[in-house]
């Protein structure tokens, strides 16, 4: 059977850079999935993408589906044959339905009954006849943001302008949004032109001749190479921000790196301001010297070749100059800042319609930070610092600089606070209280910063819950889940054994002053919400599902402890006696459920040494718990009871006939189970 190469290219108006990779991969997997589903054999798959195209080249695609044989089952023999042993109407009807001759019928036994059957030879269809369906595949891709255009009903990432679809050299008729496929593609918007692709496999080469590097990873490495060459030539360091590189790669079809400069006097602006102006606003790479100091240069990537690169560089310099001169103006204006005035202005900024102003929020954060500091037994000095940092945590939102560069919130706060002679810890905490800013971010650098960060996040969560903003399903507009994950990250990172339960109770009281509707009922939503975050975190860190469930069943006294418990179990899960340990402990938990009334153990009622043994061990356990031990040794202590418990059950009937004995033994079980259950619900752990 013959094979040909398959090419599908969707030509679009410039797609947003951030959607391109996903879209390319989706189209690729849809097409290969479709080929598999249709039993069409194929070889290597290459994916291409630029801002203006998504393309898939599949090598060695079979020209037709293979022929197949299918067996069809008809009526039972007794129905298929009439009294004279000839084919009945039913059998003939079956033949017509299957489009076969009666001679081809045969009988086959299925569970003792014979049925007529027939083998049908199905000829595979030529692939080219099936390919027009590729249009439907490409059309049905979902984008995070899509649009309509012209008179079209279709929603797509950006308007589709051409379709190139080839099977070998033959055009596959595909139609999307009134666009018909052809063998013509378009080159670079300015350096190229419309051009035919005569055979599918020529695609990449044809486009390269048209100033389009269709393979995005090649474009990326071309940019990387050019950056390195420039570094070498100039003796610069150009730190590569991978996200920026990725974005720039997807903003151009034919990358050419160039550089420009700016006035040295702007180097007196904070580095973050310069970097934000270059990176976020202009997609430039900042340039540093060998010691990591910023230099008054930038590097950018043009969509085109070397011609007139000087004009492009001058134009970009002009734009950056205007931006930096604005930034400089705002920075100078902010130097006139009066902290008191700034805090006053927070009264006029609504944080959330139903929650109140930023000023109110700041005052709550301050209270909460103080409360947490006291729970952590901070010294009075540190508590004051935490409260001061909390008070100043949002002041930079009213500065010109943050007004212009919102992404610098916190960063400017730290700088300006230092200029205003706030203490170093306070300045750092102002910046750090936003940390962790995203899942990969670190926690605040100091304990004070961590306290303020906890206070801000917990206040946001509790006050949002109070007004009914509880995340459901995909709805989490205020990113409360992220905030909760941040709380967990900080508590774990600092190893702070704070009771979430008690802390939330205190915060509800503080929030209550501004939002009277906040009451302890909220805990019914808050605690499961936090537990769910912990669960995700544990699962993400690779801890086995059943172990996670088991520790989450225990009371959450402290987040770090809970997490430690899970990792202790995870560490021990392959121990040779793990199964026996868990079974023994689970047995205690299980039977203790039958205990009633108060659990008082009377040793004088013990009938055998095993009861006595268990009791002595239990007393030891109680003592060492009082002394406070880590989770690892707690587990080891519990595990050391394994043999004692097994022996106990082997020789002792807990549910004794004598009521007094039964009660005493259940009491012993209950006491012990309090310690076991505090570690985890062992019954949830799967042991084989």
């Amino acid at each position, binding site marked *: 059977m013959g094979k040909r190469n398959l090419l599908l290219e969707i030509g679009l*108006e*410039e*797609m*947003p*850079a*951030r959607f391109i990779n996903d879209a390319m991969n989706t189209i690729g997997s849809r097409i290969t999935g479709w080929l598999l589903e249709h039993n069409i054999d194929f070889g290597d798959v290459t994916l291409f993408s630029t*801002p203006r195209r998504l393309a898939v080249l599949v090598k060695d695609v079979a020209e037709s589906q293979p022929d197949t044989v299918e067996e069809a089952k008809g009526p039972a023999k007794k129905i298929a044959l009439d009294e004279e042993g000839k084919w009945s109407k039913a059998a003939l009807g079956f033949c017509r339905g299957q489009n076969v001759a009666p001679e081809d019928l045969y009988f086959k036994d299925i569970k003792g009954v014979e049925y007529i059957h027939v083998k049908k030879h199905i000829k595979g269809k030529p692939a080219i006849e099936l390919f027009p369906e590729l249009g439907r595949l490409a059309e049905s891709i979902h984008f995070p*943001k899509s*649009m*309509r*255009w*012209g*008179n*079209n009903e279709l929603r797509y990432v*950006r*308007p589709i*302008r051409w379709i190139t679809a080839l099977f070998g050299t033959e055009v596959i008729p595909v139609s999307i949004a009134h666009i018909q496929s052809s063998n013509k593609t378009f080159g670079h*918007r*300015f*350096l190229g032109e419309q051009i035919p692709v005569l055979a599918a496999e020529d695609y990449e080469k044809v486009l390269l001749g048209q100033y389009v590097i269709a393979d995005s990873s090649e474009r990326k490495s071309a940019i990387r190479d050019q950056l390195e060459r420039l570094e070498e030539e100039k003796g610069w360091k150009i730190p590569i921000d991978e996200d920026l590189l990725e974005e720039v790669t997807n*903003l*151009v079809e034919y990358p050419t790196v160039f550089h420009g400069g700016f006035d040295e006097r702007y180097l007196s602006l904070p580095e973050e301001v310069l970097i934000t102006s270059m990176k976020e606003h*202009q997609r430039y790479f900042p340039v540093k010297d060998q010691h990591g100091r910023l230099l008054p240069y930038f590097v*950018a990537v*043009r*969509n*085109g070749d070397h*011609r*007139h690169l000087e*004009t*492009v560089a*001058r*134009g*970009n310099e*002009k*734009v*950056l*100059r*205007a931006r930096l*001169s*604005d930034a400089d103006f705002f920075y100078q204006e902010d130097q006139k800042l009066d902290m008191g005035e700034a805090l006053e202005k927070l009264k*006029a*900024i*609504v944080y959330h*319609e139903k929650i109140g*102003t930023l000023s109110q929020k700041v005052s709550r954060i301050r209270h909460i930070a103080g409360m947490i500091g006291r729970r952590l037994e901070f010294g009075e000095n540190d508590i004051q610092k935490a409260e001061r940092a909390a008070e100043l945590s949002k002041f930079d939102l009213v500065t010109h600089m943050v007004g212009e560069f919102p992404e610098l919130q916190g960063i400017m706060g730290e700088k300006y606070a230092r200029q205003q002679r706030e203490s170093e810890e306070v300045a750092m905490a102002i910046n750090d209280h936003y940390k962790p800013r995203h899942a990969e971010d670190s926690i605040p650098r100091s304990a004070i910063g961590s306290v303020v960060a906890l206070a801000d996040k917990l206040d946001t969560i509790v006050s949002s819950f109070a007004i009914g903003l509880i995340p459901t399903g995909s709805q989490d507009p205020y990113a409360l889940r992220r905030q909760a994950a941040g709380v967990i990250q900080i508590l774990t990172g600092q190893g702070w054994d704070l009771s979430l339960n008690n802390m939330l109770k205190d915060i509800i009281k503080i929030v209550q002053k501004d939002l009277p509707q906040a009451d302890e009922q909220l805990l019914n939503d808050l605690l499961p919400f936090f537990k769910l975050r912990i669960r995700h975190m544990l699962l993400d860190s690779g801890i086995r599902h059943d172990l996670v469930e088991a520790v989450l069943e225990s009371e959450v006294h402290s987040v770090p402890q809970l997490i430690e418990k899970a990792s202790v179990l995870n560490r021990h899960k392959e121990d040779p006696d793990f199964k026996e340990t868990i079974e023994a402990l689970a047995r205690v938990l299980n039977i203790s459920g039958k205990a009633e009334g108060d659990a008082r153990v009377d040793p004088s009622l013990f009938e055998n040494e095993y009861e006595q043994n268990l009791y002595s061990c239990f007393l030891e356990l109680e003592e060492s718990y009082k002394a406070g031990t880590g989770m690892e040794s707690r587990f080891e202590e519990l595990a050391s009871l394994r043999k004692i418990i097994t022996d106990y059950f082997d020789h002792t009937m807990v549910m004794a006939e004598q009521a007094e004995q039964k009660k005493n033994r259940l009491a012993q079980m209950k006491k012990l189970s309090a310690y076991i259950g505090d570690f985890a619900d062992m019954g949830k752990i799967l042991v084989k």
Partner: protein
Amino acid sequence: MNIQEMILVLQKHWSNHGCILMQAYDVEKGAGTMSPYTFLRAIGPEPWNVAYVEPSRRPADGRYGENPNRLYQHHQFQVIMKPSPPNIQDLYLESLKLLGIDPLQHDIRFVEDNWENPSLGCAGLGWEVWLDGMEITQFTYFQQVGGLDCKPVSVELTYGIERLASYIQDTENVFDLEWTNGFTYRDIFFQPEYEHSKYAFETSDKDMLFNLFTIFEQEAKRQMELGLVHPAYDYILKCSHVFNLLDARGAISVTERTAYIGRMRSMARQVAKTFYEEREKLGFPILKQLEKEEEENGQA
């Protein structure tokens, strides 16, 4: 090329491509989009191709004529084409060539930028067009106007005249731009820039403005009830400008701000709906006329 020549070139170009050349609409507004030639005409099924220069007032951006880039009032060259033609990007790039910007000598990019105007219930997807890193045009496919889905979709091009001119004339300060032979931007606009800034930030009568907002709002609603879309819309524009003046004056707290925007949005939604209904009552005349023409052409 001076600004006057630029405008002439753009007008000629878009006129050649079937746009009606309109004059600026004579009610104050913050952006060309707010002109009824855009806002109202983007609604409903009737085709609509126009181009016009729109002076746009943004009181809070006033800088007493001292800032080289920021202005109380700037100029937008606005193009609307409904339905958006398939070759719209090419038409646009052609206009840049006519302005002397050869794409081969520059770096021209279409960078994602999604546009929203919550106070008008508008949303669109598109790009800002970068010329060597400078944003020179907003390029938007309207998806929603006045809370109504756009069918067909209009494309809106908004050229920032001053931005573009400062590139073409290679000046650092907007006031140094040549408007036409012998006249700079400063000659024409410096005094109004200064005076309007002073007015917006210092001398405007807040109480009067608050009163005006209420009066304009009432009138807009009353006219809407009568089905008189255009007078109603004029008053909505007036509300918007008064709001911008109050905002520049710092007279509106953040809470009130949300409330005012809400009031304007609800009027904008209502006027959009009323416009649609009124056009429908008229049988969408432009659409009907076009169909008739096509029929006649078909017969001929």
